[in-house]
């Protein structure tokens, strides 16, 4: 059983929803990322999503765009991100790590080389935002042959046919984008999300994560009633941004926020 599967089955038996924080690797400075990752886990995170910085983050709102820009000022590359995961694994062998980014850095490294290196580093899943299942055949094969889960997005605009295609390409979990828009946008309609999750459950038994637009503990708690995992990104990245000049404070602030969310979710 993969680390991602194990995590979800344990949480399910405990009747809890996974909390998945997202941060961008190398933001605001590469030396802090591994420490932030450990801090997130100690605050109650069950999986980690680590953003791979990209020069043209087309699906991201301004908050995560700027995180990418801060990381790229330090020339953080895909190889650097894998190195961070390897260092994280020295002290944490159970928390799954999913890389989230855009295809081009993977494309340039080569699918097979990337999958080999990611497996060695201790990565568990890979989400390439701009790679729909139609174009994903070769990468999915490379990932699978290295025991990595290809994570795919589902969206409010995905019809039944697309959901089936997504379900058959994905493993680990499916990441439902809870609104039409970029990361960090507002306007979450809970009823609509719940309806769509039901629709997705008709085509898959994979756990369903919900992300984009979850801004606070209250929303995380609401979502935890209908989803198997709650992904929180821009809100955490904002904390990093606001404290970028005093990075020593960031770990504690992230900890407090994630802990608050975890507590609210467990109460829900």
């Amino acid at each position, binding site marked *: 059983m993969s680390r991602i599967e194990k995590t979800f089955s344990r949480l399910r038996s405990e009747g809890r929803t996974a909390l998945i924080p997202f941060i961008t690797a190398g933001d605001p400075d590469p030396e802090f990322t591994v420490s932030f990752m450990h801090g997130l886990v100690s605050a109650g995170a069950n999986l980690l999503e680590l953003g791979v910085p*990209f*020069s*043209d*983050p*087309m*699906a*991201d*709102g*301004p908050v995560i*765009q700027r995180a990418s*820009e801060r990381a*790229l000022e330090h*020339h953080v*590359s*895909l*190889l650097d991100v894998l190195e961070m995961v390897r260092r994280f694994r020295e002290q944490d062998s159970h928390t799954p790590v999913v890389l989230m980014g*855009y*295809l*081009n*850095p*993977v*494309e*340039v*490294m080569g699918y097979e080389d990337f999958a080999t290196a990611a497996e060695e580093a201790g990565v568990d899943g890979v989400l390439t*935002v*701009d*790679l*729909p299942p*139609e*174009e994903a055949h070769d990468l999915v094969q490379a990932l699978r042959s290295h025991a990595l889960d290809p994570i*795919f*997005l*589902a*969206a*409010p*605009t*995905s*019809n039944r046919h*697309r959901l089936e295609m*997504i379900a058959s390409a994905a493993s680990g979990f499916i990441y439902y*984008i809870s609104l*039409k*828009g*970029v990361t960090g*946008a507002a306007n979450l309609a809970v009823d609509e999300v719940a309806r769509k999750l039901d629709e997705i459950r008709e085509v898959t038994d994979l756990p369903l994560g919900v992300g984009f637009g979850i801004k606070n503990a209250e929303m995380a708690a609401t979502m935890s009633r209908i989803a198997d995992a709650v992904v929180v990104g821009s809100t955490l990245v904002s904390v990093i941004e606001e404290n970028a000049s005093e990075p020593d404070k960031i770990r504690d602030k992230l900890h407090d926020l994630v802990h608050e969310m975890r507590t609210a979710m467990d109460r829900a």
Partner: protein
Amino acid sequence: MEKPDYRHMPDEHGHFGPYGGLFVAETLMEPLEELREAYEKYMQDEQFLTELDADLQHYVGRPSPIYHAERLSRENGGAQIYLKREDLNHTGAHKVNNTIGQALLAKRMGKTRIIAETGAGQHGVATATVAARLGLECVVYMGEVDVARQEANVYRMRLLGAEVRSVSSGSKTLKDALNEAMRDWVATVDNTFYIIGTVAGPHPYPAMVRDFQTVIGREARQQMRQMTADLPDALVACVGGGSNAIGLFHPFLEDEGVAMYGVEAAGEGLETGHHAAPLCAGQPGVLHGNRTYLMEDRDGQIIETHSISAGLDYPGVGPEHAWLKDTGRVQYVAIDDDEALAAFHTLTRTEGIIPALESSHAVAYALKLAATMKPEQKVLVNLSGRGDKDMHTVAAREGIKL
């Protein structure tokens, strides 16, 4: 290798060989499928095509003439140079051929809001123009750097009723404007049509924009036959994203005697790294929804481009050009800022035609090429736009403030 079937590309998934395709986040997949269906339906629809033709004739002013630049040819020596006068179109460039088509499609699809990205501002102006005419709301994204160097076009767009949103992320140029337009679209797909200005982006854009631009090549093929009883020996066009070039080339692809040259921007010189020539000096990758040649570093990050002409300042290129390069059907070459400026002045002084800086790249290469050819041979250059928008840039180079 089997002879490629140039006229029936891309395949049903939008692939030109290994290039093209659909690389976007899931939210846009279904809207792009709807767009593909609408485009395929209306490109077969008599009424749609009749309306498009009428607009191209009465509103754009087509067919655009072909002009034999006799004095230029004589002074340069070698082959005869002909100009396809896209600069004489309404709004001053080839861009309007595409915006007319996409706006008609937007109307058929019931969309009430139009968005676009622009570099030089020509596509933005062409979009704002058709939006004004059809009474559609219009938002144009433009990099902060381009807003500064193409002031006149920014003002034109505002006069036409468009909202120009300055983009300050990334390199603050065309690629970032495209990112921002995509971000808008993903949140507004229900009522919004995204008019992409070149043969880039996810399928069906590269094919659709090409199909709206091939009116250039279809006319040119007929006009050259009428004027010279023959096809030209060579075609030359500048390549930013590649829409004016593919528009001219595509109808000639099966004419084996016609050589084709796509001219990229060498900026300060290919060897300096400060250029915008992905086909000449880049490598394949994935950006803006398709696989193509890109300017990128070894980590796969897109790098900043440089060209004196904002319309060529783009790190990618349409996927069909990537494929035409690999098949060898089209030669891709590069012209630097200084060469383009020299050609700008040469054409202006010898023929009384002030070309856009983008088009000046094509003129510069055509002059070099013609000089190696015989006087009875013919080179057809796509004069993609007029130079009015570039007065400030050219004057500033000469230390003159307008």
